């Protein structure tokens, strides 16, 4: 599919910001199933300097500095992206079993497996623990195909957790998410990653967008699409496979990747240091995903 994505982030400050240094992760990266053919980032007020570089995870990082006093910061990223579906060598219920996958993780010396281990360990937001392991363990029987188990797990999170946009802020501790069984897509992704890692399977956090379709007979509203997050799990026989616990599905063409990392902290859309600004700025995000022929 071909998409045009417009992602606008706005910060409204209560007091003027005299100066700011920011790092934005808003430029979609190219991946095996996706190519970003065109991108433009516009910042208001105008930047004094900016630089664009590929970061450690291969994401496109956009650094900028603003020197003029402002009470509103707006950053708009427009991209043309071509996506494809995930390709699997085998059906989900036929690949490597959980037991074999763990054995492979323990002994294999192939490069992809060694490098995948980076996503097995604790990261700033995701600290693995026994409760997380216990929550997912029943689904991951030794002789069950790994991806089949992950799909079932994706379904389980969808069934048992309530999507509740106002229920958490980003970085809610996982024990709390697990206990309250509610959250937003970032929380579900973090939770699923935490459980997978606790079981011994490497898992990544993926940020991006998803195309939403308007209810039948209605016009699609501009800006109604959301920034989204899901996961990617490492399966020795297939490589990295993405799942979306918020929508209980295997990730498909309508999922557009911006960046990936160990957790949200590696791919936060915008972070940085500001001088002034007062307390608690108001943030508005608007995302528009349009299919183009």
């Amino acid at each position, binding site marked *: 599919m071909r998409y045009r994505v417009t992602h606008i982030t706005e910060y409204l400050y209560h007091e003027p910001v005299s100066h700011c240094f920011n790092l934005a992760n808003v430029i979609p990266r190219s991946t095996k199933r996706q190519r970003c053919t065109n991108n433009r980032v516009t910042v208001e007020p105008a930047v004094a*300097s900016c630089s664009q570089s590929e970061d450690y995870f291969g994401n496109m990082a956009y650094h900028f500095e603003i020197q003029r006093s402002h009470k509103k910061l707006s950053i708009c990223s427009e991209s043309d992206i071509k996506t494809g579906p995930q390709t699997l060598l085998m059906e989900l219920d036929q690949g490597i079993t959980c037991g074999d996958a763990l054995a492979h993780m323990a002994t294999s010396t192939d490069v992809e497996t060694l490098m995948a281990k980076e996503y097995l360990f604790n990261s700033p937001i995701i600290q693995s623990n026994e409760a997380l392991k216990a929550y997912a363990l029943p689904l991951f029987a030794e002789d069950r195909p790994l991806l089949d188990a992950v799909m079932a797990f994706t379904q389980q999170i969808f069934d048992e957790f309530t999507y509740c946009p106002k229920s958490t802020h980003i970085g809610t501790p996982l024990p709390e998410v697990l206990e309250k069984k509610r959250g937003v897509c970032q929380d579900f992704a973090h939770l699923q990653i935490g459980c997978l890692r606790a079981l011994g399977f490497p898992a990544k956090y993926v940020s991006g967008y998803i195309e939403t379709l308007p209810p039948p007979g209605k016009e699609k509203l501009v800006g109604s699409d959301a920034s989204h997050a899901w996961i990617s799990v490492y399966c020795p026989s297939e490589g990295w496979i993405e799942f979306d616990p918020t929508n209980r599905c295997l990730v498909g063409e309508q999922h557009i990747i911006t960046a990936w990392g160990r957790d949200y902290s590696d791919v936060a859309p915008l972070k*940085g240091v500001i001088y002034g600004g007062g307390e608690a700025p108001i943030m508005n995000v608007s995302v528009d995903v349009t299919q183009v022929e």
Partner: protein
Amino acid sequence: MSQYHYNPALNARDEVYDAAGTMKEHWRYLMESLEAMGPEAYQRRHEKALRILRDDGATYNIYTEQDSPVHTWKLDLIPSVIASDEWAAIEAGLQERAELFDLLLKDIYGPRDLIRTGVIPPEALFCHPGFLRPCQGISVPGNHQLILHSVDLMRDGSGDMCVLNDRTQAPSGAGYALENRTVMSRVLPSIFRDSHVHRLALYFQTLRATVANLCTTQDQPRVVILTPGTHNETYFEHAYLANYLGFHLVQSGDLVVRNGFVWMKALEGLSRVDVILRRVDDWFCDPVELRSDSQLGVPHLLDVARTGRVVIANPLGAGILESPIFLKYLPAISQALIGRPLRLKTVKTLWLGDGKDYQQVVSNLDQWVIKPISRSMGLTSQCGALLSNQEKSTLLEAIQAAPHKYVAQPMMSASNIPTFQDGEVVPRPGLLRSFAVASNTSYSVMPGGLTRVGVTENAFIISNQTGSQSKDTWVVASEPERIVTNLPGPDSALPMRDAELISLPSRVVENLFWMGRYAERTESVLRLMRTVFVMFSGEEVVSSDCRRILLNSVTELTATKPGFIDCDKEILYAPESELFRVVTDSQLAGSVRSNLNAMLYCADESKELLSSDTLRVINDIHDALSELDMGLTSAFGSAPEEALDPLVTALMALSGLAQESMLRGMGWRFMQMGRRLERAMQTTTLIRNILVKEVDVTDQNMLIQALLLTLENLISYRRRYRGRMGVQSSLDLVVLDTSNPRSLLYQLEQLSTHVKALPKASETRHELRLEERTALEAETLIRMMQLRTMCLREEGQRIHLDQTLAQLTDVLGSLSQYISDRYFAHKTPSQQLVTPTWGSQ
């Protein structure tokens, strides 16, 4: 046999004696010379060394001590001696090791082939908090990424030198080694000269050249040393090296990123910085991409380094090389990267993240020293054999919870070096820290390095933080050394930029300004106190009116209200306790002690600009300050003013030094402005308090005397006016007479001169700036003064005098504010755009 004879410990390896008890040849000359010198002469030299270290301001701050963390650097006069042929082998080993660590660094932040090929297990790198992912791909110009490499070495049981750990974050100690050498060559000149010790100069020349050459775009790059600040344990060294190498010493607040470059906030605006020699740990350096809660960082520094517009040495991220996990895999790493094992031994290291190693260690904890994998984790090394059962199980629990956070190394005892301690020469285990700096083709190693010895014979941790002594390290040549020229070659790296002389960080200039102000403030308060003491204990009776006026002046001058203002009459006759408080109470803002503490703080912040004579006077002030309480308490019965004399003298010496031996640069000017401004303000306050109120003739005479005495004008006045005390004639002398360096107008004239000389933009060369106009206003106000009008009285007050002086005080206050606004850096508070709710890793 004298007590200065050295008896090695039994059953321990010794540097001086071999196993058969024979003295090694390269120690003979030194040991014989020391013995011949005898205990008394040795003791005298030891004291001399202490004095020099103190005068140089050589200090080391110990973090755990709240009250007085500043210690004079500890140097033992018996050097550690290494024969040059053995050193040649060590040096080659250190070079090879530095080369290897350079390749390791390139791989870690590059392709990570060592992980891809299974040489290092992924978790050894990926789980380490020192692995800074944002530093991926940063590249430093030249052949080497690792610029500075240090290791701690000890001689193990088999007699080989063995590496205990590597230091790559911001290795410290080279400056202390240089200071040790400087002191040794002065205190033991003949022994030093005759020992043919390899010189240190070449190392520092290479360091200077290498660092300067890291900038490839400027012929004359601006290099700064970035220090965490005066509270840092090795701050002395930062200032000392900045001075020695001719680099600016800056704190993070002095640096700012603008337009994709790094700049130093200097007096004349922003000056571009090309190279940063950092002494701040890498994860603190940039709150945007590294630790978001860091107060020691410069926002966006990492991104500027990434684009190559500033070069940082060691590069950000280099701290990862200190991970002791690498020591376990070093043989394999070495094989993979240079195709052979390292020549220099490394201590055996087990990593508890490895299953086999874990079993081996926990099954017999007594054999091991357990160390954290990162110094950032707030954990200390623990020696299994020295732990109680309770402590052992606590440690085991911690290990079980996160085994990958620990390594284990066998207990080792370092060989002994003779050390002077409590009047005897005793054997103490020694560690050697080496220093290597990248040069064109390889690494240049400092001959010797910094030796530290344990506090006790069986000390297991040898660190300055535990109070260890240091030693100079002598690599002694069997034949005379090649003379290394100290003169820079024709195309040497760092010719002075014209602007360099005036380009000081604004923070330093601000501190000099305030140093001047505090010094002057203290001096004028002390002078007034002396006057009060002298008058109150003098032959003439001081009336209660007079007492009240004088004591009120003390309160006003020190701004310590309520103090004596409206106090009971009894207190006028027993003012000692309040006066004592005004001098000694450090909690009382405005007291002599708090002013001096503030002044000493400013001196510390601008330390690299102060001459060694100035540092010595600063020491005297420290001394006088610590003896002040005692002196005053015991002196209150008789002549208490004498207790203040040492301080007044030291402060006079300070101002004299500034006048006589400070370069007439901007630093000097700002210090002078501070002094003139403060003296003008203090004199104004004093005159206003003493002369405005109308009193009877006897009191008037006494008060005029007090004023003149305080301003050191009494003698001149008597000469001129033959003892007739008049308000008008005294005002003439203390306000208007510009041949009197303590008169008000003299201060104002000087102020105007200094303000005029400050840097200004070329387009407004002829227009007076706000601060020039204000200085002129102050000067004019006093020049236009008519003494007869000033003396007119209305309702018991010299009302015109009062008004004029009040106006002057306001104008001077504004002037200080304008100078501060224009020339000093003002820190705007910053915050994170998004406050992370998760902890910093």
